[in-house]
């Protein structure tokens, strides 16, 4: 029987998911990815997680719990640093411990970032699984996985969203894309932007209003890095860097406005929220900042987004006259 490895569809799955899936499959293991976040899953996650954690972490725990019965191992990433001299949020460092508390009986398979690299080296594999495979096989699996990772990100840079890019990657079917229309920027951590239950379907809503939505994943890491060189002091957190860099690129792309979805209680975002706000003012670009948490009622969020879109629309209409 093939060993089943559960992968929670949460947090940095939206960034690294295909890498993990392909690697495990190449080794002859069966990756089992949890389904989209549902309300039940959210509720169980909220109940099982410490209070202070942000909503995305609670959702992650919910995904772990939903996978518990379907897998032999649960894969939990421990990403500390994926680039030289900058770090992933401390909640990610402690993710395996938090998960162990909540999940209890299921053995964890911890995917570690090594030497400033999330893509991994043979050491990335936990000892318990490493024993069964030759170093050569692991190396080959990682190569395949990295290739899939690059393809996936190229698709995101072409404007696809993670779900679509994954479909392309694993089934080959190319999604139908709407005509390119008016453009709006959407920034935030990938796990806030691409989980429709966390953000109550913001991307969908914007698309229904006829907008082409540009997210940080639309830009290459190199483009983002170039923007950050202009900062007076480097940003400590990798994820914050992506948001600030993408924000600056979006300003240059002449989007009509930018929506920033942040997770309530996210420390790093409290800082960059201010930075982004200042820069938006200087650029004269409309910016809407929204904090997401588990009891954010749909009405409040939708009201603000609608009002923001109205603001953009009325502005445009008047500038046309």
């Amino acid at each position, binding site marked *: 029987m093939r060993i089943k490895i559960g992968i929670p569809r949460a947090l940095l799955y939206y960034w690294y998911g295909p890498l993990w899936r392909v690697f495990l499959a190449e080794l002859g293991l069966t990756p089992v990815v949890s389904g989209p976040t549902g309300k039940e899953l959210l509720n169980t996650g909220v109940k099982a997680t410490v209070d202070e954690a942000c909503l995305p972490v609670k959702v992650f725990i919910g995904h772990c719990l939903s996978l518990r019965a379907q897998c032999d191992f649960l894969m939990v990433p421990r990403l500390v640093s994926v680039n030289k001299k900058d770090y992933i949020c401390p909640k990610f460092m402690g993710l395996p411990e938090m998960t162990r508390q909540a999940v209890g009986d299921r053995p964890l398979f911890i995917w570690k970032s090594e030497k400033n690299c999330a893509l991994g080296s043979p050491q990335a594999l936990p000892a318990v699984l490493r024993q069964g495979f030759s170093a050569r096989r692991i190396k080959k699996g990682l190569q395949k996985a990295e290739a899939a990772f690059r393809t996936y990100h190229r698709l995101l840079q072409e404007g696809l969203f993670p779900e679509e890019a994954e479909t392309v990657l694993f089934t080959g079917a190319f999604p139908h894309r709407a005509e390119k229309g008016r453009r709006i920027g959407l920034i935030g951590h990938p796990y806030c932007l691409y989980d429709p239950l966390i953000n109550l379907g913001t991307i969908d809503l914007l698309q229904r209003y006829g907008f082409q939505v540009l997210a940080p994943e639309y830009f290459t890491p190199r483009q983002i890095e170039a923007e950050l060189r202009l900062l007076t002091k480097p940003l400590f957190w990798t994820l914050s860097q992506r948001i600030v860099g993408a924000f600056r690129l979006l300003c240059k792309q002449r989007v009509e406005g930018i929506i920033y979805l942040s997770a309530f209680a996210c420390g790093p975002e409290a800082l960059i929220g201010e930075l982004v706000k200042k820069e938006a003012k200087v650029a004269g670009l409309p910016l809407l900042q929204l904090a997401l948490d588990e009891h954010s009622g749909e009405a409040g969020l939708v009201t603000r987004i609608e*009002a923001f879109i109205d603001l953009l629309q*009325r502005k445009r209409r008047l500038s046309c006259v």
Partner: protein
Amino acid sequence: MEDGVYLGVDVGSVSTNLVVMAPNGRIIKKIYLRTEGNPISSVQKAFREVAPEFSQAKVLGVGVTGSGRQLIGAIIGADVIKNEITAHGVAALRAYPQVRTVLEIGGQDSKIILIDHGVAVDFGMNTVCAAGTGSFLDQQAHRLNLSIEEFGQIALRSKHPVRIAGRCSVFAESDMIHKQQMGHSLEDIVAGLCAALVRNYLNNVGKGKEIRPPILFQGGVAANAGIKRAFEQELGHPVIVPEYYDTMGAWGSALLAQEEKAVYGKTSFRGFQLSEEEIGVSSFECVDCPNRCEVVKVQINQRPVSGWGDRCGKWQRINTEATG
């Protein structure tokens, strides 16, 4: 009235307002009712009040806003269902075209709208906390055994307002009790409360926003002279309370309906007789998938007219089936 009228309805958490507007933008009639937790019956009540006068008038368009806009919009057949921010901004610009800042404090939410050259450029809205809103004042007035109407006048008599923590309504309350027990006068406490509310509003809703005159103050709380004075002291500019300060949202939605009418031409208004019809609303948790959406269904005379709350769109479909 021969030219027809536009209706604007603002279904808020505390009050339900209706305005009847002439095509030239003038308000012919306005009705201000307490919602009392039942938006449908309060709209029916409002309809009953205007029906004798306007049942023969041609309704050209209907706009709905406020937190109950979706429910009421579906029931009365609105042409425009718009959020409160847009509606208030549109009305403020019509009342004072030169306005630069709109302060709006309603029952459950408060907002600020910044306007530049006749276009809304930025807005802010209170977050989950209700400490800077009308219902907070309502609650505290009740605690002090005052009617909300006399509240403002009492505040104006104060010479030395006491300092009250306005960050949180729970803390404000204990602070007020403390000040009462210490022997401070009622007017100083009430004035202190007004100042606390204004401080909280400016720190929360107006955080980081540049407030430039002319400043308009609207929403139900604008009736409170104490709050108005506290704003003027804090901002250092005169604050204007427009004539229809308490029905600006309804007026704005009527103006939006008129704008929309210029584009589409026909109203889908169901008529004033709705006030006598049987309107049923039920909600349930759909168990067809793990999303567990809370779905709302609306029926008029036992016929389903609308549904929403679902992520998949299954229940929303009756909207289009009913209206064709």
